[in-house]
């Protein structure tokens, strides 16, 4: 199975808009949404049945038994994360608790124990033969990189005999992005022609290079800054990176998305442009 990953660095560049268009154009039989903090892909791909849901466990959290507690305050004094407070009884703030186990270790009466805590939910849709893997990280939980890995694993094990999988990657430049990159055959970076967009694009390119992943770049909403667009194109040339094309800002794209459609489902200029980008990317992927 060939895996194509779509990344952007900065949020709001159009990763999901482009990923959904690619899924439509390629008629991909498997796809995944790795943006586990704020998954969006399911809003356009249109699922008809309920998904198979699995709990995802992150860091264990401490819990204090009020009956056993003798109020010695050792737990609160030793907690480095300000996660324990006293309000009639001693309580652990599950958002601040990092599961380090120090409170459990220092409690003289074994009133504290670490329990597995649900940090999110994995969802697997398998309707009409298409496999769609996604997940939602619970609010306040920090282990998103590992959940990204689970999303990809879930897709891979459900998708037998699938030729091409499209992965909508995590935004940012941190660990969830690195988790998205692992094991994919090619990454398409969607760049935004702005100063912060260019800086994020450069960091992602460096990271993809470390994994030896085939990389191509495209620009979305390029007409919002022709000067920065040119900068990016020159940068790609100087680095020997394939430039897959540019897509104009298009208010019709917003209309399509708001109606749960991809930009290639309607007649619009961004849809026409993304087809060109798609052809170039497929050519590079199959080289």
């Amino acid at each position: 199975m060939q895996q194509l990953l779509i990344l952007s660095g900065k949020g709001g560049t159009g990763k999901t808009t482009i990923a959904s268009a690619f899924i439509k154009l390629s008629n991909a039989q498997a796809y995944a949404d790795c943006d586990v903090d704020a998954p969006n892909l399911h809003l356009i791909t249109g699922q008809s049945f309920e998904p198979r849901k699995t709990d995802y466990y992150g860091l264990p959290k401490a819990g204090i038994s009020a009956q056993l507690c003798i109020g010695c305050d050792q737990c609160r004094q030793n907690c480095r994360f300000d996660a324990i407070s006293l309000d009639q009884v001693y309580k652990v703030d599950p958002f601040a608790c990092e599961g380090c186990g120090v409170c459990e270790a220092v409690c003289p009466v074994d009133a504290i124990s670490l329990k597995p805590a649900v940090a999110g939910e994995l969802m697997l849709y398998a309707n009409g033969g298409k496999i769609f893997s996604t997940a939602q990280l619970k609010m306040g939980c920090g282990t998103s990189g590992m959940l990204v890995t689970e999303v990809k694993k879930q897709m891979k094990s459900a998708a037998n005999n699938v030729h091409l999988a499209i992965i909508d990657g995590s935004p940012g430049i941190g660990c969830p992005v690195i988790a998205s990159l692992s094991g994919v055959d090619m990454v398409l970076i969607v760049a935004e022609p702005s100063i912060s967009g260019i800086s994020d694009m450069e960091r992602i390119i460096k990271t993809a290079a470390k994994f030896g992943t085939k990389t191509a770049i495209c620009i979305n909403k390029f007409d919002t800054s022709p000067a920065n667009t040119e900068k990016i194109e020159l940068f790609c040339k100087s680095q020997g990176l394939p430039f897959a094309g540019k897509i104009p800002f298009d208010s019709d794209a917003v209309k399509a998305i708001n109606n749960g459609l991809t930009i290639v489902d309607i007649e619009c200029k961004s849809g026409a442009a993304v087809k060109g980008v798609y052809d170039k990317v497929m050519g590079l992927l199959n080289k």
Partner: protein
Amino acid sequence: MKIAVLSGKGGTGKTLVSVNLAAEAKKSIYIDCDVEEPNGYLFFKPEDIQEEKITVKIPKVDDKLCTGCRKCADFCKFNALAYIKEKLLVFEEVCHSCGGCITLCPEKALTEKEKVIGKVQKGTSDQVIVYTGILNTGEASGIPIIKKLLAEGKLESDKPIFIDCPPGSACIVMESIKDADYCILVAEPTLFGVHNLNMVYELVKLFNKPFGVVLNKCLNGENPAEKFCSEKGIKILNRIPFDHMLGMLNANAEIAVRANEKYRGIFSSLLETVTKEVQRATTINS
């Protein structure tokens, strides 16, 4: 008053709103809590920068006292310690600084040393005091930096404070809004925007923070975010239209209210609305 500006995803206009509100308020404080990817300083270009390094405590072993009992390595939930060829190895980037190993060592062979994880910079741009938090790449948690940023901000209580939060709804966002009097949720009026708005909406409700919504990049036509807000009874503070020139100014890291008079109207009215809302909220709560 302390105003936190947040959004469910990146690219919606958090920095646009917080930077321009701080600039429009003239004598104010701007705190950039997006420590993994700070952007505000690109707009303010602050001068007279003072810098302070932020550290966390990491274990250090005295080989002469260590007996190789491995209590520390067995305890560590983050696998930051390994015992190889009669030496204890400490993996600093994986260590969460919980202090457990030091407390549990029966031979008192472990002590702590400071490790730099990032820095806080303070500068000025006209009359705005600009605080920037920067987390070094590869470090696990920006929370100690955010704690320092907000503590610094507390020292200047006479000026309005605008907190530019990290995107999403993870622990660092929660830490950023902890002391806020009011939260501005910035949303894009698209299907995706609403979905993400819902996330931060749940977050501010959980923390019982008074809040309102600013819709950014508004175009003509049906607006799913308006529907969401009216269904949930959420106050829309302002609607910033999609504006090519505003987009360009932003892309070039220019502060709209300083670059062009016509944008002052939007942000001065937003500032007025927010100030009224904060007063209303604090009267209700007192």
